[in-house]
């Protein structure tokens, strides 16, 4: 054990850490503590296998501040719990649940209560350890075989040599007078060089820095944009085992996953028996467009307003509010000189101005050239209403001052 000794302690004089006295009953320990306390020592302690009642006053131990720390932690926990919920559900990610207000404090009570308890309990535990300076990696008392009984059935007092009043002879005599079973010196071997080898220290330092790399990568990924799909460890939501409409399959002889309807199938909405109403043509023909509205459609001011409204929603973006083919979309396409763009025809010019109303109905329904059909978006009656409004637009373009009621002609100026 020679290497454990420091240069200044020769084998003859052992540096003393403390004097240790052993007692066999808690009563003897408490009485001895009173004597040591009264002698004025500060750096000393009593050791017992269980908390001995009445030892705190006998040693002059003042009440710990731990309860105040726990109170502080509890209040902090409550505040953090409330702030977290208000911030996350009230501002950061506002959800309306059952029509409750975003900051529904009563619903936040349970979680705030739990965070109060959690932080308090961790503080009671951690605070006690920190105040007790635990975990303690080494204590010279553990070198004494006898001291192992401190956690079993023996009681000890240890007066440390760091105390100002410590004197090998006087301290030993004081302890001997308190009726201990044994008094002995505890050797001080705390000065042994216990530093880790340099290689291990550097290794740990490097490992610490390297461990930051993945975290830095994650942080970088989080705050930068990428065209790649997010990484998922389990990809069964990204790639699902199912057939989509346009995929092929070996299961059917035609290799199509989407099945065609059974021959003769008619969708309920496709039942169009009245050619005049549903197709805008004379019954039994394909291209003889009707010049009058179907009997089911009532030409009225209300139908006109409806047609105007629908026209401005569906038609005006390309055809323009007045139907000259100068809607926002058309104008933008012209500006950008889009090569594939077919300009919408003006409703007021040669071929269209003379077309029968059934023609307009038919084009709205099925589309023409680049214009798509709107049958799926606009119900029949609304299509007729739009055709009606188109007729009104055409009349207004071809009209003269005489068409305007005399009492409103002044507004034209």
């Amino acid at each position, binding site marked *: 054990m020679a290497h454990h000794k420091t240069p200044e302690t020769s084998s003859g004089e052992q540096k003393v850490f403390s004097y240790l006295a052993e007692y066999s009953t808690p009563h003897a320990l408490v009485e001895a503590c009173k004597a040591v306390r009264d002698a004025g020592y500060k750096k000393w302690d009593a050791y017992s*296998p269980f908390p001995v009642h009445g030892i705190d006053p006998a040693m002059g131990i003042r009440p710990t501040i731990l309860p105040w720390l*726990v109170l502080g932690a509890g209040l902090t926990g409550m505040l953090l719990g409330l702030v977290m919920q208000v911030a996350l559900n009230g501002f950061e990610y506002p959800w309306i649940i059952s029509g409750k207000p975003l900051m529904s404090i009563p619903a936040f009570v349970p979680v705030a209560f739990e965070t109060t308890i959690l932080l308090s309990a961790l503080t009671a535990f951690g605070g*006690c350890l920190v105040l007790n300076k635990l975990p303690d990696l080494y204590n010279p008392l553990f070198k004494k075989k006898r001291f192992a009984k401190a956690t079993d059935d023996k009681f000890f007092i240890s007066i440390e040599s760091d105390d100002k009043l410590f004197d090998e002879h006087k301290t030993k005599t004081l302890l001997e007078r308190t009726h201990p079973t044994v008094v002995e010196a505890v050797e001080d071997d705390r000065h042994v060089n216990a530093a880790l080898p340099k290689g291990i220290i550097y290794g740990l330092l490097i490992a610490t820095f390297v461990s930051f790399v993945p975290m830095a990568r994650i942080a970088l990924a989080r705050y930068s944009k990428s065209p790649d799909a997010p990484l998922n460890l389990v990809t069964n939501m990204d790639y699902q085992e199912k057939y989509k409409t346009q995929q092929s399959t070996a299961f059917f002889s035609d290799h199509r996953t989407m099945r065609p309807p059974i021959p003769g199938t008619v969708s309920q909405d496709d039942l169009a028996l009245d050619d005049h109403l549903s197709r805008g043509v004379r019954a039994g023909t394909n291209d003889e467009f009707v010049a009058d509205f179907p009997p089911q459609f009532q030409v009225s001011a209300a139908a006109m307003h409806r047609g105007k409204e629908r026209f401005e929603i569906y038609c005006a973006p390309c055809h323009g509010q007045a139907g000259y083919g100068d809607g926002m979309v058309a104008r933008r396409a012209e500006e950008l000189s889009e090569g594939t763009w077919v300009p919408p025809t003006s409703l007021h010019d040669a071929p269209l101005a003379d077309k029968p109303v059934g023609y307009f109905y038919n084009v709205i329904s099925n589309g023409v050239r680049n214009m798509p059909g709107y049958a799926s978006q606009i119900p029949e009656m609304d299509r007729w209403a739009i055709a009606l409004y188109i007729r009104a637009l055409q009349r207004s373009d071809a009209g003269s001052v005489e068409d305007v009621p005399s009492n409103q002609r002044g507004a034209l100026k």
Partner: protein
Amino acid sequence: MSAVSHAEMMRDNTIDDPTQRAPLLTDDSSFGDVTQAVAGVAEAKPPIGWLLGFGVAACGALMLVSCIGWLIWMGVGVWGNMTPVAWAWDITNFVFWVGIGHAGTLISAVLFLMRQKWRMSINRFAEAMTIFAVICAAIFPGIHVGRAWLAYWLFPIPNQMQMWPQFRSPLLWDVFAVGTYATTSIVFWYFGMIPDLATLRDRAKSKVAKIGYAIFALGWTGSARHWHRYERAYLLLAGLATPLVLSVHSVVSFDFAVAQLPGWHTTIFPPYFVAGAIFSGFAMVNTLAIPARAIFKLEHLITMRHLENMNKVILATGMMVGYAYAMEFFTAWYSGNPQEVFAFTNRAFGPYWWAYWTMVSCNVISPQFFWFKKLRTSIPVMFVLCIFVNIGMWFERFVITVTSLHRDALPSSWAYYQPTHIDIMMLIGSFGLFFTLFFLFLKFLPIIAIAEMKTVMPQAHAHGDHHGGPATAAHAHTAGSH
């Protein structure tokens, strides 16, 4: 006048004599004897009963792990859960295990605050039971979310989706309640064990054991200055754990009570669930303590009086639970709400009538035997009755969960839930995990709070001048209730 002699009391400490306090140890052990009795269990070679029990339990735990693996691989469809019974054995098991845990905290914290010193020989047990039960409980909601690897979404962790949990849901309150409960219970258990781990460290013969215990004993010396803060911290932890234990099962009951479903939507749930939790937990403590004290020869520390006291608690909480069952029916009838009336009539007389009446017989009728002292101090009787209580409390959660769900608002979706093999194996497996952990605890850790035990021994009272034989020592103890 002391009608009963001390010697008689030591022989049978269930005798009630108001003039003296019943002894908490039934022999005149010294401090060293107590250390030896408890630490000896961890040091000795395990008895054959332990090896057998551990082997069987470990197989069960393995089965649970395999089932969980299968469930994660295949999806929750391996369970019998379906529409409308989307919560079935998973939630039943969760509530059952969380409830079991509550007796541990109750014994360690509530009885501590009430200065019920008889708790000391069973509190370590009960706390260990709490932790292992909470572990079993936490598994079930974790895997029933379906995509178990995304269960971390339950916690408010910053994420790339910028989504946050919904704090107005009782399911999220549950995450916080059970999480706090598990953390606090582990801290409380470990904190209480530090001085005893130091005892094991100081007695350890092998190097591995010594280093192992030394790491967890944190260098504890038994310093009076440390004890001072330690006792204060323990008191604080007990004070914190007490409202916590009441909150946890209340929050668990909110999972049901906050829903609109008839059969769940009742304000009686929080107190009713807490009473049920204590009821089942005490039954489980007895179920564990009875064989353990026999196997490890701890009858003088875990005495008949301890068991009897627990049986009294079981009787009292069993009556509360029975009252709650009756009150539920009364409330349903008194509400005049046809859905409520139907839910409860259906519960008792519908397709799951057998589950309901199993629950009532086990939870309401079986504890009534504890009115008789002869029965509540008989080991075989109490063992059987406690197992009945455990069965009954599992059925209670099953009845609440499944019978309320299987009759949906739309009669076209009515269905009859049946568990699959995986359901059954997982329930058995959860017992396997629980007992595996418990057997490990019995073998490697101080199963009775050694240091605390010593404080209730007559010799521990330093200020008394009695240092005589057992007769005066008992006297000192009676006076020494601080």
